[in-house]
């Protein structure tokens, strides 16, 4: 069966796969990573704060979302966000949200949970003396967080952030639920339309592998550059 490997289909599909599929995958990965990092850091700070209400809210949110398969989360957000937006904007009917934005919002909110845990462990793994030292110099908690704690925590956690981003990069394929086409979705669509599943999946595996590998090598190099000399 593999002897009849149909390269022709792949070659024909290349523009679609990359211009439509991969460009969406990369866009979503980028948006969700940036948004997720920002929101996740906020969540981490909430979780670690002395305010019990804040930390319970953040903890509950993180644990709830992390317990559910992403497919279900995407589904729920797609149908809840319009109502949430209606409530927020006070509009008369549910606000119609484009699937693309729904996916960006969902992935951001979902990835934030994972980034939250990463940043939190990064902060916690710093010696307590660092916070004390910053306070002893007269810095407020906020200053200590921004100038002393976060810069170190984020750098220390770079490998974990990368790993999570690679998982995110792969998870974007779940946007099929919203009828959006990412790289894997594009491959699957061509595969189904032309009855060439084997070819397209093997090709997708190779592409994902190469991109993820390049990304992890690049970050490994970057990490050496930004690594904190201890």
């Amino acid at each position, binding site marked *: 069966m593999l002897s009849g490997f149909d390269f022709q289909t792949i070659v024909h599909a290349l523009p679609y796969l990359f211009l439509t599929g991969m460009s969406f995958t990369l866009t979503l990965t980028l948006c969700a990573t940036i948004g997720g990092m920002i929101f996740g850091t906020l969540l981490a700070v909430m979780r670690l704060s002395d305010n019990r209400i804040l930390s319970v809210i953040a903890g509950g949110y993180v644990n709830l979302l992390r317990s559910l*398969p992403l497919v279900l989360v995407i589904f729920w957000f797609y149908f809840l966000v319009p109502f949430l937006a209606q409530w927020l904007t006070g509009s008369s009917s549910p606000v119609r949200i484009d699937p693309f934005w729904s996916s960006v919002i969902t992935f951001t909110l979902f990835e934030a949970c994972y980034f939250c845990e990463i940043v939190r462990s990064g902060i916690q793994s710093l010696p307590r003396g660092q916070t004390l030292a910053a306070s002893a110099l007269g810095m407020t908690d906020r200053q200590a967080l921004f100038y002393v704690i976060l810069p170190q925590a984020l750098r220390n956690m770079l490998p974990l952030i990368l790993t999570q981003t690679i998982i995110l990069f792969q998870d974007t394929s779940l946007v099929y639920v919203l009828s959006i086409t990412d790289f*894997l979705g594009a491959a699957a669509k061509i595969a189904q339309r032309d009855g060439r599943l084997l070819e397209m*999946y*093997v090709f997708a*595996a190779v592409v994902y592998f190469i991109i993820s590998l390049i990304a992890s090598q690049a970050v490994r190099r970057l990490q050496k550059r930004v690594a904190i000399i201890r």
Partner: protein
Amino acid sequence: MNYHWNWWIFFEPSLDGTNTYLTTLFWGLGWTAATAVVGFTIALVLGSVVGVARTAPIGWVQTSGMVFVEVFRNIPLLVQMFLWYFVLPEVLPRDAGMWLKQFPNAQFYTAAVCLGFYHAARMAEVVRAGLLSLSRGQKMAGQALGLTLPQTYRYVLLPVAYRIVVPAITSEFLSCTKNTSVGIAIGLVELTGTARAMQENTFQVFEAFAAATVLYLALNMVIVFAMRSVEKAAVIPGLGNRIAGRGR
């Protein structure tokens, strides 16, 4: 929204003609749990072997460990699932391929093995991190007493490393459980799949997914509680977060 809620739908007979939808959902839950447990057992064992290999002082062993991790971590699970189920039997010799295809419950075994390998790559990183967080002195102390390298891993390094990474193991277990839902791709009738089938036929989509959501949360809670007792049992008296005399 003019949605017609019908919570009684769970007690109506499902497509197989005998079971109610509720029963099929529980069957789905059962397959999810079984796949997760078998898959995660494989991940734990294989991941430990690979994690140890990645810290071993032997070049080619380290390299093979690294290759394993990179390959199984960098390809989406869905694609891996597909390759194991549809492609592997085709590239094997004909007889072996046929044997695989005739295997009863092939989707279950394939999904479990595939999940096992995928999470093994991630467990390997967890185990490795645990081992690296031990001071170099622990390894030396074991060897200085005359323990061989395997003995040092077995009696000195791994017991402590595992304890350190219990929280990470818990979250791997949870994510393994969630990832069983990818088994749909090869026809595994796990929880998400049963909810989806129920929804396709009855169109009671919110009820079906609400049930799946609740069941996932329940399953997760069981795992979290189980792992918490493991964590408790594994506590080393007198050892806070300073491991092995190091740390500041």
